[in-house]
């Protein structure tokens, strides 16, 4: 199955899918067309059982510079709220709802909603020269596409307030210090390092990883009783997976498990 996209690249290598934001001349700024294609790409990734790990990265110098302000200009009188509701929010939910690991190879700046897209991923590997910036405030806007949600949960209120109201750039070293990224690697290696990790994940029990992702995302809004009840459901489901059978068999036979991801 191959679909041709114009603003992104959709490339499958084995079980690893790489989605590349591909408008390098515009620092991969988000347009409506790009959002539509991203939506289609994530839907396709969800439906394709052969895909067991997804990399999200950007072409050229930037990861994603956020909303393309030129794209807005073409549509006078448009409502930014509707743009979020129609384009951004569904895609953020698609990334978090995709029951496969989504790894961000942060190759350059992630600004505004571009930062939200990075934070929606499950793991972020950052290039040395990469950065994130809550640039919304610099044009008189507020964080969107989940940035408020992600940052309060990841960093707590005070840090989130400081970062979102200052609109200052967070360099790779600071991102690491804040634990927003898994590791910082030389620019030339960021994609390869992320691919290595993706290949590892592609051999993992994907069904269980998907269930973990589903569970972790619920924990933010759950009390202990509901969390325990939900974990019990997820474990019941994992306990009926092929991978669990294989895992136990391999353990008993003292060999390495070969997970099918089901």
């Amino acid at each position, binding site marked *: 199955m191959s679909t041709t996209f114009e603003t992104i690249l959709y490339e499958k290598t084995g079980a690893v899918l790489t989605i590349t934001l591909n408008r390098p001349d515009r620092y991969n700024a988000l347009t409506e067309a790009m959002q539509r294609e991203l939506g289609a790409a994530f839907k396709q990734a969800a439906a394709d059982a052969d895909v067991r790990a997804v990399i999200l990265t950007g072409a050229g110098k930037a990861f994603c510079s956020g909303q393309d302000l030129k794209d807005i200009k073409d549509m006078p009188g448009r409502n930014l709220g509707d743009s979020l509701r129609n384009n951004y929010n569904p895609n953020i939910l698609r990334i978090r709802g995709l029951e496969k690991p989504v790894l961000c190879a942060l190759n350059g700046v992630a600004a505004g909603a571009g930062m939200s897209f990075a934070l929606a991923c499950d793991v972020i590997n950052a290039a040395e020269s990469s950065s994130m910036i809550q640039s919304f405030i610099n044009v008189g806007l507020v964080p969107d596409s989940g940035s408020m949600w992600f940052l309060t949960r990841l960093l707590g209120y005070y840090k989130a307030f400081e970062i979102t109201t200052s609109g200052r750039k967070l360099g790779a070293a600071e991102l690491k210090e804040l634990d927003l990224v898994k590791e910082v690697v030389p620019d030339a290696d960021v994609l390869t390092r992320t691919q290595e990790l993706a290949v590892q994940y592609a051999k993992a029990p994907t069904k269980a990883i998907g269930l973990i992702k*589903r569970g972790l995302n619920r924990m933010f809004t759950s009390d202990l009783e509901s969390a325990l009840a939900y974990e019990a*459901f997820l474990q019941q*489901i994992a306990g009926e997976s092929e991978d669990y059978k294989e895992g136990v068999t391999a353990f008993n036979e003292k060999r390495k498990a070969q997970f099918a991801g089901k």
Partner: protein
Amino acid sequence: MSEPEFLRIVRDASVATIFLNRPKQLNALSLALMDELVAALSELEADESVRAVVLTGSETAFAAGADIGNMAEATPVMMLQRDQFCKWDRICRFKKPLIAAVSGFALGGGCELAMLCDMIIASETAQFGQPEIKLGVMPGAGGTQRLTRAVGKVRAMEMVLTGRAISAKEALAAGLVNRVVPIEVYLSEAQKLAREIAAMPPVAVRLAKESVLKCFDSFMQDGLEFERKNFYLLFSTEDQKEGMAAFLDKRKPEYSGK
């Protein structure tokens, strides 16, 4: 009954599960399907070994509505003569516990059919809605009445007038469904609930169900009297004697179903 074309029925001890089975049409409720459903329920009602029934569709769709093809060119007189909703009244009178296991779309007639059931277990992907307004009509199989009773006026009004569906989470908050569980287990959870009820003394279950439903079409005092008489009536059953004796003896009751 001849083998149904649009249903699949699975029996497991005292619980029967009916699968709506028109996958290509997302289980749209055609007249033929509804005929089969009514026939199947009548048969299960008469079968004493069946104590509870689960009604379900597929992961993608419980039922995506009525069969529009059946209706697009209809006249009012045709609709009147067809009287398709009399079948729905029959399902409403089904005497055994009926549990809907809903995943995916429960829209229009699908939502109304789920609401005809006594309880609803929903998967996280379930969506409930009455989109008829978008086709120039309105709900016709109880959607304005049962939905309003289930979720209250303001929420029902919004759903019916905009045609917009609500998520499983919203349905839970609105009191439309009993529980929301992961998609992998919605059916087994509904069946588990059915087994739990199937283990209860059946005459008491039947009269209790009748009494709860009475609430919807009686004044309080009439309902209370109806309840009381059913309560008294249960003292004529063997299961009442056994249930109370077992309680006093601190042992598990062994119900005979009589």
